[in-house]
């Protein structure tokens, strides 16, 4: 009896956790995560001194859970996604994730306390696919818009594309991925991504 109650309680909590994550509005989520990460970097001498591994660790912990990398990989692959086996899909997603996290780390490392303008969300409460706008304000230049495309999932809002200055990251990979699949198949693309990631890792250690 006691044990059953315990299981029910555990299940209830397990069900509660995602429900609470789901309650957080997408624009609130983007703002709180961004401010938290920027704040942590500002306080961390090692990261500001160029410790890339530590920065990537921070991103993995704080930012990664809010991205849907399978969606991103699927969108970047376009029609080729359905030609991949489930195992290939997993590997593509994993390699793509590594590459994107590294790119994100480079972008964050280049950030130097410009003002951030979090725009109010323009969406209906019933929407399940929204764009959250943030703008980076800098003197003597047009503000740079960063748009997060987000979809509602059972585990809360997840980012499936980031547009910087009107350039969609996912769309920008599509031609490259397409061409590589055409030239050397899906295995070739995975090999290429993996080689790119390893080369970048090697460059970090040097």
């Amino acid at each position, binding site marked *: 009896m006691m044990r059953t109650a315990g299981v029910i309680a555990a299940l209830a909590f397990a069900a509660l956790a995602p429900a609470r994550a789901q309650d957080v509005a997408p624009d609130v989520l983007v703002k709180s995560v961004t401010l938290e990460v920027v704040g942590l970097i500002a306080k961390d001498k090692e990261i500001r001194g160029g410790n890339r591994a530590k920065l990537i660790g921070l991103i993995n912990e704080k930012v990664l859970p809010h991205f849907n990398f399978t969606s991103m990989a699927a969108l970047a692959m376009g029609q080729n*996604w359905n030609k991949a086996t489930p195992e290939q899909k997993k590997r593509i997603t994993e390699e793509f994730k590594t590459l994107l996290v590294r790119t994100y780390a480079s972008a964050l490392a280049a950030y130097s306390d410009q003002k951030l303008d979090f725009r109010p969300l323009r969406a209906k409460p019933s929407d399940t696919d929204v764009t959250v706008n943030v703008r980076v304000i800098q003197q*003597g230049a047009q503000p740079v818009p960063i748009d997060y495309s987000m979809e509602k999932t059972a585990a809360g809002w997840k980012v499936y594309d980031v547009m910087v200055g009107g350039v969609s990251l996912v769309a920008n990979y599509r031609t490259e991925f397409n061409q*590589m699949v055409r030239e050397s198949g899906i295995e070739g693309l995975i090999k290429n991504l993996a080689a790119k990631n390893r080369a970048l890792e090697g460059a970090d250690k040097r």
Partner: protein
Amino acid sequence: MIGALHRILALLAAAALGGCATVADPDPRDPLEGMNRGVYRFNDKVDTWVARPVATAYRDYVPGEIRDRVRNFFANIADPMIGVNNVLQGKFEDGFFDLVRFGFNSTFGLLGLHDIASDMGYEKHNEDFGQTFGRWGAGPGPYLVLPFLGSSDLRDGLALPLDYYFDPLGELRPYHLQYGLWGTRVVALRADLLDASRILEEAALDRYIFQRDAYLQRRRSLIYDGQAPREREPESRVNPAPAPDVGNISPGGPS
């Protein structure tokens, strides 16, 4: 000087010809890929050996405070023509505020060294003749890589001489002052792009393609002032049937 120019042109021609044969299946947006890749390689060499080292030195040795003033100064002298282009595109209010920016920054902002207009809430815009033509309905045409200048397309390449013709530095005399300011402007511009170009290098599997697609996306977004209709391709989730492989061109309309 003439000799050097000839050598550069010969190099470019060789690069272009050398590249011509390599592309078997070009992207419909980039029919001149072979030639473009040749020019791209040439530009890359110029950048690696001249532009990037000079820009890096500028960033490392000139204090940030001074670099801000330099950026603001060149941003300010560009505002009147940005205003003209906004007016040509029918955006009279934006155009008016570009002139307001120029007025405030040139006077209270001490010849544009301080961008006080931005602090007052008058945001800077990004306009040029290429965008104006795009707004009037001109498509991008084939993608082009211009020697020294880099990514462009037929529409923007044809519009570029207008931007240069109306550039305020063009009337500046004596010439050595004009060339000096142009040099500073180019170095400062490249310095501001150092981080972006490094990120591009890291992110791309094929830098040429990555940069081309980013340019085309960016220009499309600028023409629509950031409000471009979405070009999402959800076919991988919604429609699993294999469609003909044509890439993502959007026929018609400014894109």
